[in-house]
């Protein structure tokens, strides 16, 4: 009887492991052959092109990382995936957009240039205001989201807040569509930060453009990540967040207002996503109600890739995903349209082969 039950228990695991290994070997061999082919047989791209892909990857990866941190913080503290997080980012993009539009409408004429507006008279201040607005709007969104959609379900079965999150996501997309029309709009950058302008560097005899918006985004992403790390590791709020993530009841016994810490977590997650949203706007240039969906799912992938619940993991996962999806299609010699497919393939592969991600996931069991 025991022998029988142990056999019937183990067989499916064994089959699963064999299937996993076979898939793994096929994927790795296929990818290696394609990469070998591109790099050494076809030699389709010069070094300059690879550098271009790499730069794009880091810029977009920085944004993924900022958004991914939000998934990971919320997962760490509530054990749930905030599927409306992409919409929080989208709200941030809109926040920045409206401020830039408003500033562009304020005349600031000079003798030399009577048509000058505030946006171009004070480009840095304007961008700063746009980031502030996007960050504030998204933090507020995150705060409200938790309060309205998740808090009432705090003690409900785990599926309930997930469904609520998907509902909130759809609601926000539609609300923004109704309020601001479904049209695609151009993000208004100051002329000094026009998209497609930047520094030109020479690599392998070719000019590689490093855009101002890209550098601004990347540098800001890194600064925000360092800031977040310091906040979580070195401050009273951060310590309380880590304590609540680990054990809510005991944190409460220390005098921590657990609900307040959960709110703060959503505010911080929202702020980072909002900053990423404004970067997305000034760098990629389009704003519309659905724009948060793809980066949201990509950043979720990045968070899983790094190890959900693990903050450095989310940062690393974001940068790695950005790089892989910008270099990947060229390296594999496949259509560039397939870059989104690469991201989702990575998600599936990570979930199959290493569910705990690159740096290890936080275990939810410990928290509940």
């Amino acid at each position, binding site marked *: 009887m025991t022998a029988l039950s142990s056999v019937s228990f183990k067989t499916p695991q064994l089959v699963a492991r064999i299937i996993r290994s076979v898939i793994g070997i096929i994927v790795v061999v296929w990818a290696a052959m394609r990469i070998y082919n591109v790099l050494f047989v076809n030699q389709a791209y010069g070094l300059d092109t690879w550098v271009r892909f790499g730069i794009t990857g880091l810029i977009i990866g920085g944004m993924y990382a900022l958004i991914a941190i939000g998934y990971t913080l919320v997962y760490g503290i509530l054990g749930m995936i905030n599927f409306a997080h992409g919409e929080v980012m989208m709200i941030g993009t809109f926040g920045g957009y409206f401020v830039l539009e408003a500033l562009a409408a304020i005349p600031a004429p000079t003798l030399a240039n009577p048509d000058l507006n505030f946006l171009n008279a004070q480009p840095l201040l304007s961008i700063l205001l746009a980031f502030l607005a996007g960050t504030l709007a998204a933090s507020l969104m995150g705060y409200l989201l938790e309060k309205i959609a998740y808090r009432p379900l705090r003690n409900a079965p785990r599926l309930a807040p997930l469904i609520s999150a998907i509902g909130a996501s759809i609601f926000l997309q539609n609300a923004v569509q109704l309020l601001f029309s479904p049209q695609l709009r151009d993000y208004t950058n100051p002329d000094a930060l026009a998209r497609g302008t930047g520094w030109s560097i020479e690599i392998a005899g070719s000019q590689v453009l490093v855009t101002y918006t890209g550098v601004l985004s990347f540098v800001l992403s890194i600064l925000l990540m360092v800031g977040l790390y310091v906040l979580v590791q070195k401050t009273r709020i951060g310590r*309380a967040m*880590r*304590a609540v993530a*680990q054990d809510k*009841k005991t944190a409460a016994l*220390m*005098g*921590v*207002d657990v609900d307040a810490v959960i709110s703060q977590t959503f505010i911080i997650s929202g702020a980072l996503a909002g900053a990423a949203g404004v970067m997305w706007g000034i760098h990629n240039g389009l704003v519309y109600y659905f724009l948060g969906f793809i980066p949201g799912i990509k950043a979720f992938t990045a968070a899983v890739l790094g190890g959900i619940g693990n903050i450095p993991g989310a940062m690393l996962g974001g940068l790695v995903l950005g790089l892989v999806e910008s270099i990947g299609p060229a390296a594999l010699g496949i259509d560039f349209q397939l870059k989104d497919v690469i991201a989702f393939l990575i998600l599936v592969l990570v979930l199959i082969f290493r569910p705990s991600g690159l740096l290890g996931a936080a275990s939810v069991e410990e928290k509940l």
Partner: protein
Amino acid sequence: MMLEITDLKVSYGAIQALRGIDLTLNEGEIVALIGGNGAGKSTTLQTISGLLKPVSGSIRFLGDEIIGVAPQEIVARGIIHVPEGRRIFSSLTVEENLEMGAYLQRDKIAKQRTLEEAYVRFPRLKERRKQAGGTLSGGEQQMLAIARAIMAQPKLLLLDEPSMGLSPVLVEQIFDIIESINDQGTSILLVEQNAQMALSIANRGYVLETGGIVLSGEAESLLHDPMVIEAYLGG
């Protein structure tokens, strides 16, 4: 009177865990609450510290009703609960655990001073202050749990089975520490299955069985009570 519990009833859904208990604690006392597994001891402490909402009854602390008061506010008023199983924040360092204990102390200098005092009392913790809490041994974790509670400078300390899982030598040590904390003016409600040890340091005691107080009195007389000896002292 420091703590006055009257007719306290607590349920988990349909399960009634406390069926109307009365308990008092005077300032400066150690009161032992003893009883077997599942008697309702932890439930009592969790209700005092605000983690559980009772069905009915009253809990007065220094004259004020504290039922319905949020746990963090109860901490602020001076009741600190060391939960069963120690509940160290395993990924936080020893020092961060201690700082969590003084979470509501905003005065940095005062906090530093309590930290130094805790390290004088628990030199072992000072040696390990940069280590993750989860890497400590069971005895060290219990020390840390008590030290963390002391960081809040409590008026009333609720201890849930501090001897659980510890060797007799460590139990002795822990009880010495509990006595010394009491000597310095902290009142203590001590929940234990180890009735012998608990009653030996307590002023008074209560015996809890399946959600009701069945016996109470001076600790000394409980130690010689035939029923207590039979049920809890292995006599």
